[in-house]
Each structure stands twice: as structure tokens, then as C-alpha cells.
């Protein structure tokens, strides 16, 4: 067992789930939000030659996905270290 006590174990899982929820909210907003649900509203704005909503749906959301995963890797490694459950 890696955890010092049960409190730590619960705190670790709570921290992890909280991080996941935050990142999944961003995931939902950039793809389903900006790319689909709000696409008409965003299309009134222009980003160079793109309508903004169109750009999110065919480019922007994908860039955000990549950044989200790499941020998750970074943040998760931090959490693992803090609780002493990282891999040696």
C-alpha cells in the first residue's frame, strides 16, 4: 500500500476526481459547447478567415483536447507525488 492512512487514500481520490471534473468541463465546453451548441452565436465573430464557431468545431477543439491531456499528465504526476503513490 502506498498511502499512509485511509484519510490520505480518500483525499487522493477526491483530488483526482475533482481534477477530472474540471478538465471534462473544459472538454465539453470547447467541443459540444463552442463547436455545436453555441456555434451560431460564435459564428458572428470572425477569427482571420474563419467564423469563430466553425473554427472551434474543425480546429480549435482538437487543439484544446491535446493540451488538456498533457496538462492532465502534468497535474496527475504532481498529485501522485504529493500523496507518495507515484511509480518509482
Amino acid at each position, binding site marked *: 500500500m*502506498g498511502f499512509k492512512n485511509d484519510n490520505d487514500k480518500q483525499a487522493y481520490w477526491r483530488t483526482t476526481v475533482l481534477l477530472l471534473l474540471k478538465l471534462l468541463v473544459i472538454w465539453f465546453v470547447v*467541443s459540444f459547447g463552442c463547436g*455545436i451548441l453555441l456555434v*451560431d452565436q460564435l459564428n458572428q465573430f470572425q477569427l482571420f*478567415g474563419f467564423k469563430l464557431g466553425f473554427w472551434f468545431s*474543425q480546429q480549435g477543439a482538437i487543439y484544446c*483536447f491535446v493540451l488538456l491531456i498533457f496538462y492532465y499528465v502534468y497535474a496527475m504526476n504532481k498529485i*501522485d507525488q504529493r*500523496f507518495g503513490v507515484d511509480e518509482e
Partner: protein
Amino acid sequence: MDLKTLTMLIVGASFVLYFAIAIWARAGSTQEFYVAGGGVHPIANGMATAADWMSAASFISMAGLISFMGYDGTVYLLGWTGGYVLLALCLAPYLRKFGKFTVPDFIGDRYYSQTARTVAVVCAIFVSFTYVAGQMRGVGVVFSRFLEVDITTGVIIGMGVVFFYTVLGGMKGITYTQVAQYCVLIFAYTVPAVFISMMMTGHVLPQTGFGATLSDGSGVYLLDKLDGLVMELGFHEYTSGSKGMFDVFCITAALMVGTAGLPHVIVRFFTVPKVRDARKSAGWALLFIALLYTTAPSIAAFARVNMIETINGPTVAGQAATGTPYSDAPTWITNWEKTGLIGWEDKNADGKMFYSGDERNEVTIDRDIVVLANPEIADLPAWVIALVAAGGVAAALSTSAGLLLVISTSVSHDLLKRNLMPNITDKKELFYARLAAGVAICIAGWFGIHPPGFVAQVVAFAFGLAASSFFPAIIMGIFSKKMNSQGAIAGMLAGIIFTAAYIIYFKFVNPAANVADNWLLGVSPEGIGSIGMLLNFAVALVVFKFTKPAPEEIQQLVESIRYPRGAGEAQAH
């Protein structure tokens, strides 16, 4: 050197490379055959995952689909990338910590039930076969166009190559071949796109090029020009959609969740040494996938403009284009006409080709040629065209190999070892794994040569079933300690039966009724997997309420997969 010889050389060279890798990376044990010994570097695994994931459909068909669908093509772009976020955050690290070989392994052990395992095995095999049939066909099509052999010969060559390195190398052989295949396919995909972007907009990156102004001196944005062109010709506006918003939402969700639930993708994360690597590897995989997926919509927009202008002739100072005389048609049109992928019928007998979305239209264009003919349309050198052929073959082969391995593992490991013949030796199991891979290749090849008319329809099936069966069961298995076998099995069955029934009804039983008015809540069969997924969750939770929670030792198992420390190599058992 003519195009055919050049293509043979480049495709042949890529095959030699794959063979060399297969011989170097032979599998000696079931562990190497199933999960490459669990020792793959995360970046290499990222590339392998990307090649595994991007099939003939992504490489050949997707840009074409987007080119004709415009904004509606978004469902593929978001659906087939967004799933990796779910995979990286919610599935991959925990399944890696769990440390077995397959998805049915997890479902069977976590839900302490052979029934659950069997349901999972059947789904895994069905989903994989559905998928692989289309891949073999893809190999055949590429060969027949570029090497001028018939499709059957093409499929048989493809079968031979896959047979060699899958049966010999197992997951270990496949992984390193897929790394090479990724390099071939991404190079082949981006080179023509960069050339075309530079020609049309002066931007090196196609990703920014399609939001830039045209370099013809007009100062008009490419997308504005495209919107103008297509509206004038009676199509719907390129940058806005024609599907219902809720349907687009559901299709995207079904494809995302389906991606995260596809066994041949999940199993790739069992091959890295550590939990940390599984997380990182998902990031690399998506980065490598995003290179192609952000290029595709640019190719789509460039190709649509190019195609319209070539066929209808340029618009001159306010005068609408009236068509290009057939006698002046560029050679790519006549070349592809021979394959039947472009057709022209001179309806108004003026000797000119005209392409539009209304009754004036005289030209039929198969979506697949957008990528395949792209280098010819842009007048690129012959080696680029040959490269695209090699890339298409690489995309189809890499995905086939991954799928065939899932089928073979499901049979030898989940069905024989874990179910029917538990006392089998490692060596015997390895033999059965190879045998199953061989048989699966022959079946896949048969489907490639005699494609059932329903291949296109059943793709919705693969994603729908993965979304409505595996995804909820795995998520609940990780994020709920107490979810029990009764709940999980009831949920999976409810999800599968509902989704399958809906798709079968609209695709096979009563295709005439397959219109928006008859759909449940306006959701098309392509998107119904997301409703099936919700149903799975709901049924599982209700059944769980009325039955006993999972036993103590299972709850401890769940706790132990939630943190990384102590993840050994993938365990044999």
C-alpha cells in the same frame, strides 16, 4: 519512370520495412503476443495507437466526406478525437494499473462473472469484425487504382502482408510496424496538403491556410469564397450545418464514447511499462492523430474550391461560371472517369461539364477521390502520388492488424484460456492465438473480396455498440466501488439490445422509414449509441439499487487500481 513503377517501388519498399520489423520483433510468449511484453515506450505507443486508430476511412474517406458535408463533417473531426480525452482521463491509467490483457478480462474480473466476460467477448469480436471488413476492402481499392491489379488480387496481397507480421509478431510485431506505418501515412497525408496550401494561399501550414486569403490577388478569404461558390450552385452554406443540432450532438457523443470503448484502442494502453506512461501515451497518440485531423478539414475546403473551379471554370468579373468544355478537361478527370469514381453526363448537350447542387448538375463525384486525386488535381510530382498510395495502404494495414489481434486474443485468451480450457499451457495458448489470427485474416479477406452491401451501414453499429456496452461498464467499474455484476450485465444488455434494435430497424428492416421525422427525439441511427449509453447507465444504477453491492475483495481491487504505485508488468495468470 512512370507512375505505376514508382508506386510499386514505394509501396514495395514500405512492405520490406514492415517485414524486417516483424522478423526483428517476433513474439516468444503470450505476454509478448498480447501486450508486447508491456515494454513499449510511450511515444512509440502513441504513434502505434495513432496508426491503429486511423484507418482507411480516416485516410481516404474523411476529408472527402467533410468536403461535401462542410460544417456537418465536424461530427467526425470532434467525434474521432474527443474520445481520447475520455480515454486518457477516465480509462487508460486505471486499466493499465489493473494490468491484464484484454477488455473482457477487466469486465470479467471486475464483475466477477463469466456471463459478463462472455457478453464482452461477443461484443469485442463483433465490433472488430465489423471494422476489419472495411479495411481489407480499402487495401484492395488502393491497389487496384494505383497498381492496376484487380481488387481481389489487392486484397490477397494485403492479407499476405498482415498475416506475416501479425501471426509472427503478435502485438510486439504490430506495435513496431505501426510506428513505421504512422510515419508513412502522416508524411503521405501532409505533403500534398502543404503543397496545395502554399499554392492557394501562400501559407505553409494547411491548418492556417484554409482560414487565409487566396493568393490570386483578390484578397478574399478562402472560406468566404467557398461559401459564395456553393450557395450560388444550390448547395447549403459550407460553414454552417444542415443537420439538426441535437442529432449532431448525439452523433458526436456516440463517436467519442465509442472511440473510448473500442477494444483495439484500449488494448494499446496495456503495452506500456507504467501507469504514468499510459497517461502520457494517450497525449502523444492524440497529438499524432491531431496532425492528420486538423489537416483534413483544410484539404476538404481546398479540394472543394479546386474541384468547383476546375469543372465549372473560373468566375470572371461578376459573370457566373458556365462550365468547362469536356475537351479541355484536365487529365485527372479523365483518369478517374475510367475507375468510375467520376461521371459526366452532358444533359444540356453544350459539351461543357457543370457541377451544382440542383437540376443543372451533370457531374457525379465519389467522395473518396478527394484525397486520392488531390495530388493530381494540384499537379504534384509523381512520387507524391505514389506516396499517397503507400499511405493509404499503411493506414488500412495498421488498423486491420490491430483489429485482428483483438479477435485472436479474444478467442485464445478470453474464450479458451479463461473460459473453456483453463489448464492450457502458455505455449499451447500462443499456438491458438496464432491460429485464431490466421483464421480471422481469412474471414476478413473474404469480406474484403465479397463486401457485404452493408459495410457502410454497420460502422454505426461498431461505434454504437462500443459506446452502449463497454464504455459505461468500464467507467462504473472504476468510478464506483460497489457496482455489482447484476447491474453491469443488465446495463450492458439493455444498452446493446436497444442500440442494435434501433439500428437494425432503420438500416435493414425498414430503411424507407429512416428519416428525421421517424427518429426517436430526432436522433439518427448513427447517433443512437449515445442514448444507448445513457440507458446502460440508468438500467445499471436501478438494478444495482435492488441487489447486493460487489463483494469486499472486488471493492479492494477497485481501490487498488485507482493509484499508480505498484503497477507491475501486465500479469500472466
